[in-house]
């Protein structure tokens, strides 16, 4: 466990920076988390993905992987990698304040 401070609010995260409690996340925190990951500005396209990650997590208890993300949002995988360069599903989940997507083992 670690602690981070976003917009003046302390939140618990795992060692990689994923939120321990997604309910502590607010939209105002997203730009700061993104900036720390090298994304200077969150465009509407970024927000479409971030909000989708939140919805999916709330509905299913797990964030989608990149293929499901692409198929459901209609955003091509290539573009997802341009928006969230280090791994779209993981990075979007982090910025959206939800736990790291599990994928399958």
């Amino acid at each position: 466990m670690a602690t981070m401070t976003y917009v003046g609010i302390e939140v618990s995260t795992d060692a990689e920076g994923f939120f321990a409690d997604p309910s502590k996340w607010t939209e105002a925190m997203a730009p700061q988390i993104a900036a720390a990951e090298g994304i200077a500005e969150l465009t509407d396209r970024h927000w479409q993905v971030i909000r989708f990650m939140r919805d999916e997590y709330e509905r299913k208890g797990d964030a989608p992987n990149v293929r499901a993300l692409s198929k459901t949002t209609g955003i091509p995988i290539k573009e997802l990698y341009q928006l969230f360069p280090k791994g779209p599903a993981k990075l979007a989940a982090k910025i959206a304040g939800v736990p790291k997507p599990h994928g399958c083992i």
Partner: protein
Amino acid sequence: MIGGGTGGTLAANRLRHRLSPADEIVVFDADDRHLYQPGLLFVPFGLAPPARLVRSRAAQLRRGVEFRRTAVEQVDLDHDRVITADGGALPYDVLVVASGTRLALEATDGLTGPGWGKRVHTFYSLPGATSLAGALAAFEGGRLLVGMIDLPIKCPVAPLEFCFLADWFFRRKKMRSSIQLTYLTSLDAAFTKETCNRALSGLLERKGVELVTEFATGEVDGAQGRLTAYDDRETDFDLAVLAPLHEGASCVARSPGLGDALAFVPTQPTLQAKAKPNVFAIGDATDLRASKAGSVAHFEGEVLSHNVTRFLAGEEPDARFDGHTNCFIETGFDKALLIDFNDEIEPTLGHFPSPVGLPLLKESRLNHIGKLAFEQLYWRAILPGRDIPFIGASMPLADKHLEKAE
């Protein structure tokens, strides 16, 4: 029952044993060829003759289970019926979706383009594994790239096992020094489970296998011998062996409300589909977090047959699948590792299933013998739906070193 593979066959046989003779069980499949999938790994190295791996699906079903050799077009959830490709319709009280996964070769640009079957191969199908045997035998050296494009894939350790066996294969041929062996994965490590990852990464290093992580393959160029990732990284190869992307069965994709974006069936721990309480799913067809592996289907079989029986009797399904997975990992030189884990407990050191048993997470000859013996166990006990002594659906903890694993 849609599908006469591992999950469908063992579930039908278990249910035949439990249900009254008046209850009819029908299994649909498009063909009558049941493939022993764990054997595919051995085919490219000449260690398993392809013909031995295939038997009749119908012959694996107990008396009193009807086999219909027909492809399923779709499931009509609203009217509780299965519509077949020949235009027929069969109503059901309970449906079990055991339709497995499909290799989505078309989902990766260029995969089946120039070089497919020559420089670019897969061992995830019998024709693929068979043609790869020829390519490995003729390989004269260079960069052999073994890769996994993205999860989920069947038996997620199989590409790693392929690396270990390739190392053994080329050492035996006294060619290992002219081969650069690389394992490429979309994950951030060799494997997802932490303790297991440490053991497997150590093995890769010891066997001189280069590890490339977080490589999300977007395009395959078999003519040039090059993979390009979505983030524009590139890597070259002389021979590539890839686990293609997997999706759920086409009939699930065609059935409104049944599958998710990748055509896997959203499934609860009771193995009931989220779509409807009289629909169940087993094996690779589910969206459960467990591995897509025969052992998972076996452990699920006990839960599923119990719950379907209760459902038909008007009772609440009360058994839950805990994610129990068990697999032998072939490491070459007649040795293998064994791992055993579930949703809560990581693979650990110790012995399975009790102190007098197979060593866990350690290379041993005994585990290799266990892996080979499993083929007979599969046809004679797993498919007929027999319970195997000491190896039940719930994971055993008798000799697991839960704290000492590293």
